[in-house]
């Protein structure tokens, strides 16, 4: 186990050490102590390591992650796992705004609540939120899956493309071009898998969710839809 004291050793040294690892490394277990809300912890990783942060993080923790599994034993600030490519990020607490923004792959699990704009412009990432999500979540979401065990705030899925949204609780309002869709067997199967991956299979059943997606009415300009733009 590699133990890194962020307060004593500094952010640049942490990220440089993590970037120096390659796919063949046997230094696969890392822990970071004293994060104290620092920004940009463990960003740009590209190695199949397991890293645990003991405490809460600031902005952009695990940004652009590839391959690594990063656990945060606390809460995370804005832009958690932004533009993640692969790997997994699991947060025990809450996440601030833009969690999983533009993520292209991998799995993001938030065991508490996520704030506004969760999954904004998501491009293939899977996000599982055990609690609630805030307003404008999945705005312009392009692809991937967002699973919410709790409630969703205003304007869910505004102007979204092909991303799939699964919400178990109440949706305060749907954004432009976002509609409820039929839950078919393949979606239940997908949802069961996502709940399992998201360490939530004991918390909810696929049948309890509703599915939301794009009505695809805004994909091409049409003056009769002008009020939606």
């Amino acid at each position, binding site marked *: 186990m590699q133990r890194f004291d962020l307060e004593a050793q500094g*952010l*640049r040294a942490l*990220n*440089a050490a993590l*970037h120096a690892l390659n796919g063949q490394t046997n230094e696969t277990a890392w822990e970071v102590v004293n994060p104290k809300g620092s*920004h*940009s912890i463990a*960003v*740009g990783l*590209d190695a199949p390591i397991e890293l645990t942060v003991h405490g809460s993080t*600031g*902005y*952009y923790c695990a*940004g*652009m992650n*590839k391959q690594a599994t990063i656990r945060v034993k606390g809460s995370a600030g*804005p*832009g958690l796992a*932004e*533009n993640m*490519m692969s790997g997994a990020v699991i947060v025990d607490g809450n996440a601030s705004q*833009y969690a999983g*923004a*533009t993520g*292209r792959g991998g799995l993001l699990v938030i065991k508490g609540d996520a704030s506004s*704009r969760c999954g*904004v*412009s998501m*491009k*293939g990432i899977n996000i599982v939120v055990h609690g609630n999500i805030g307003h404008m979540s999945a*705005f*312009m979401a*392009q*692809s991937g899956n967002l699973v919410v065990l709790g409630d969703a705030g205003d304007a869910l899925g505004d*102007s979204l*493309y*092909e991303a799939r949204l699964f919400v178990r609780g109440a949706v305060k309002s749907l954004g432009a071009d976002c509609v409820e869709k039929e839950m078919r067997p393949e979606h239940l199967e997908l949802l069961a898998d996502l709940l399992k991956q998201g360490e939530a299979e004991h918390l909810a059943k696929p049948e309890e969710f509703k599915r939301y997606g794009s009505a695809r009415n805004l*994909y*091409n*300009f049409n*003056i009769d839809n002008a009020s939606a733009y």
Partner: protein
Amino acid sequence: MSDFPHTPPRFSATFTPAVNAEIRRAAASGIYDIRGGGTKRHLPHFDDLLFLGASISRYPLEGYREKCATDVWLGTRHAKKPIHLDIPVTIAGMSFGALSGPAKEALGRGASEAGTSTTTGDGGMTEEERGHSKTLVYQYLPSRYGMNPDDLRRADAIEVVVGQGAKPGGGGMLLGQKISDRVAMMRNLPKGIDQRSACRHPDWTGPDDLEIKIGELREITDWEKPIYVKIGGARPYYDTALAIKAGADVVVLDGMQGGTAATQDVFIEHVGMPILACIPQAVQALQDMGMHRKVQLIVSGGIRSGADVAKAMALGADAVAIGTAALIALGDNDPALEEEYQKLGSTAGAYDDWHEGRDPAGITTQDPELYKRFDPVLGGRRLKNYLKVMTLEAQTIARACGKNHLHNLEPEDLCALTMEAAAMARIPLAGTDWYPGKGGGM
């Protein structure tokens, strides 16, 4: 019928034939006009400034013998690996999607042969572009199409795009005709949709966040890459100051003459400021913060010749960027294609329906039949020639002003021809030592 003469027909200066035609077009189609390029209105511009040249009080350098250096360093503030360019004329960001693959390749070839950089755009980095660009700036845009850490690391610099001159406050637009299979795949979008890029970044808001975002990009790239911040010409004093405060190595400032692949005409023509008015404000911000020449300033928007380059640099810029001019050098709007422009309802020199993807020059298209017409090797050579000519022109002027480096050009080398230009550029009206606002505030 009276024998008195009739009042002759009189056209309105407000409801001109062009205005009326646009009203009829809007009434018939129900959609605003979308087009490419930059503003077409007349604006105070570099043409309204002149160089004074040397005389008795200053002596010139010999045009064909004495050295006048043109190189520029970019990113010296924080980056471990700043960029060194042979000439201060760079190629502005233009996307694969807006431009064809061969056109992007030609930009890379021409820029590399001339010793300068080229820039990606709102569509990610292509292999053609990376492979043919010695120095490539990777744009970090609100859409984040194709964004990935590997391309960040194989870029030579990163440009965080906050805005562009053609549409400060607006996002990108790429209509369905140009969303080919390859473009759709790179952007992770369904084929054939009208794609609208976001106008704001998805994961930061405001200057304090931007500072943290720049910190993240530096951490991901181990502090190696210069980080530029690109702004549209809206409030250049404050935007430049905030970009510097957020940690930018380079500020890229784009005036409203800067082009776009596609945006509403009303946006292009009515939002933003001319580059002439933007440069002095940005330079003032740099000077007020003690950062002039430490944070470099690249300006763009209507740069056409070595004279424009020299004037921008005399006003305090470290380098310039060209977009529209580079496309014309490649062959855009060439009168040799007049017959085909006519078929599209346009004419050479005025063609701006780049969003339709039917460019007969094969530059602003994703149609294989059209882009096959464009030879990237020849296009690259033409761009290189043009860049070399611009550099020689700028050197010619600089030597005449007695300068042994383009960076030594200064406001004192200039005079203004019009009151408007004098006020905007803060350059004395020709024959006077005065410009409007001198001694006053901003």
